[in-house]
């Protein structure tokens, strides 16, 4: 009776909240740093979308007589060596970082899911061969591989997104493969095979929905890494071509040359990059904890803390009767 009541209570609790609301509520309640990260990501996201309205000047608009000016009321972050408002360029840089980060992560997840799910589900010799290719790919030093691919493809936002998504995706396929291997031993997979389900059907209908949590985590953690990698590529001159502002590009090109006489040219984009990656990482960490209870000893949705609350509610209801 007690166990059945507990089960009914669990079901009722699950039905009363969607996953999104549940995660959000627990983010606010249990993960303050994650909440800070989420706010930072949201600010960055909105800044990127509404950059045209937020930026007082165009990202390549020079202001005559205002070259290399320090921060002031007119130019809160100063101006660069081409007379451009750095505040405006940092805002537009958020758009670039968000586009590259989100699109690159989408491609990363797509590639990782394709490779990992097929390789992990089929298994056997196919899995072994595919994973050897993945091993070989991952042997290359990351930055060297990125630079080589960018040299072949040329600079540009599309090229950056493609290269970063591809490289991250191959590495992320390991995570997806692991999740798929864990899931495919479940009974419902066997049942799907037993009723004649094809491999594609089984993967799409039964495997992917059950590995959604690690995929979401992969997505969020990849955003920060891809933003940083894009900054590195732009810093080295292989990323977003000028004059499109990229935080890394602002650091690596003129910022580095004028650093000693105009430190604001590197401080502001550097800070923006730091805060953005910090926020993305904090948010990603919190999301990982909230969605995958096995990693943090059961503080997730169905973890022991939740069970304790449910038990205390049952007891209070019994007492009320």
């Amino acid at each position, binding site marked *: 009776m007690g166990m059945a009541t507990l089960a009914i209570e669990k079901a009722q609790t699950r039905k009363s909240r969607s996953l999104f609301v549940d995660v959000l509520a627990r983010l606010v309640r249990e993960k303050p740093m994650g909440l800070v990260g989420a706010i930072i990501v949201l600010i960055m996201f909105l800044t990127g979308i509404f950059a045209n309205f937020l930026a007082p000047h165009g990202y*390549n608009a020079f202001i005559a007589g205002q070259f290399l000016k320090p921060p002031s009321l007119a130019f809160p972050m100063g101006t660069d060596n081409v007379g451009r408002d750095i505040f405006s360029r940092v805002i537009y840089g958020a758009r670039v970082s968000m586009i590259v980060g989100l699109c690159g992560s989408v491609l990363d997840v797509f590639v990782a899911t394709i490779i990992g799910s097929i390789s992990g589900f089929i298994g056997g010799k196919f899995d072994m061969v595919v994973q050897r290719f993945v091993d070989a790919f991952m042997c290359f030093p990351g930055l060297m591989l990125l630079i080589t691919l960018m040299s072949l493809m040329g600079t540009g936002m599309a090229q950056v997104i493609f290269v970063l998504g591809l490289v991250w995706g191959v590495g992320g396929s390991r995570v997806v493969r692991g999740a798929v291997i864990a899931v495919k031993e479940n009974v419902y997979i066997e049942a799907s095979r037993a009723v004649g389900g094809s491999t594609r059907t089984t993967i799409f209908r039964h495997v992917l929905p059950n590995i959604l949590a690690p995929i979401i985590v992969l997505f969020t953690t990849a955003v920060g890494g891809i933003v940083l990698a894009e900054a590195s590529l732009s810093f080295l001159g292989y990323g977003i071509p*000028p004059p499109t502002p990229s935080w890394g590009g602002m650091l690596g090109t003129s910022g580095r040359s004028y650093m000693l*006489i105009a430190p604001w040219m590197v401080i502001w984009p550097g800070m923006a990059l730091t805060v953005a990656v910090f926020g993305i990482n904090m948010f990603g960490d919190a999301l990982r904890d909230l969605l995958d209870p096995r990693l943090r000893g059961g503080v997730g949705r169905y973890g022991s803390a939740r069970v304790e609350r449910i038990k205390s509610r049952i007891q209070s209801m019994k007492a009320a009767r």
Partner: protein
Amino acid sequence: MHRKVIWLLISVALVAALVLSSCSQPAPSVTPGTTVKGTTGATSPGTTTSTPTTSVTPGHETIKDSLGRTVEKPIYGGTLTLAAATDPKDFDEAFANTWLTPTLGMTNDPLVTVDWRAGPSGTNEANIMQDLYYPSFTQWIWPHLAESYEMPSPGVWIYYLRKGVLFQNKPPVNGREFTSADAAYSINRMYTKPGSWIYNAHPPTSIETPEKYTLKLTYDRFDSYDFIRSVSITYMVAKENIEQNNGEGGRNWKNAVGTGPYLLNDYVVGNSITYKKNPTYWETDPFIPGNKLPYIDTFKVLIIPDLSTRLAALRSGKIDQYWPLTYEQRQPFLTSNPQLKQRSITGGGYNIYLPNNVAPYKDIRVRDAISEAVNRDLIMNDFFHGEALRLAFPVLPSNPEYTPFDKLPQDIKDKYSYNPTNAKKLLADAGYPTGFSMKLTVNTANQTAQDMAALLKSMWDSVGINTTLVPQENAVFTSTL
């Protein structure tokens, strides 16, 4: 939790410190302490500059120089240390061009040189890069191993060599005298050695030595570049030295020998090159005749590939001099090393190359519009901080044919003046009322060019010329030229 909050507060404090430091005023542009007037070489010949002056450190003995100036009396001795980015590629210019064999400029001499009294140390009439790095106009030619020369008929050059000039006292030349036979050999091999950068470049039809100190070069026609190639950037060598090791004797640094002011004393690959004063050098100081050259006993060149390390070496005093420095590179030295003397010289130019044989660029109205959309005054005054010249004439100011901008005809001045309204009108007249799209290829090896390209894009976008920048790596860029 508390620890996280504490670390967060520490991080915020660090960031605030950075922000406050960034809000400080930039270092003021202090006028360099000691320069000769007209440091940019922007004055045209014939104009009067005020009497050149130099600074004199109190307490130092002074002397009058050949220009009538009171200068510090030169002191013999000491070591001058410079920096280079790369090792020499070779030690014999018959196998690599002159730019890659820098040691020859110290150990060997050409037949003619330039009048350094016209440079920044003297009257500053000549442009150091265009005229004195290698002489392109006879205006600044100065005798060197050749005391004088004449051209009795077009294509015939006769050089009268200086007597008593000795090779350095190293085997196999052992300090013997330089003669016309050495000059003839040196010039002939440069035209006949396949590795030479003037190989077969209009060689003389005959090279004669009618007398011990007379050299006669006969060409099939007059070409002023024959003068440059043969006698101003061809270094004189000794046959018996070069012909060791099957003609590659000069490629070994240990065999470096010439009539120049320094002996190549030591070379450590990737580390340093050391020169020692040639005690039998023939030349005297053009500013203080009677003073034998060189003044400095030891000349050392440190090989430092990384630019930041070279600048750090200058800042710490490890090297005594460095060039070239851009504006942003030298500004910090004004406060960190105020004792360093600075001098500006006119360097390279920035040009836009248009394919004049294809539309829309073959329409002169379009080209004029592109030019008039560019605010050159802003580029000179703001982007280059007042240290730039407007290129509105085919030659530089130091050329005797140069005409200053303000003396050009008005219609020419208009083409190089900022007039975006007229630029739009010209585009409309040419059939592009809404403008057109243009791609501008930029060499990524030059950050200044990239920054200026962004500035130009903004200017051109404002008149309807929708410009897309196409950065290209140096190798790709040069291959597409």
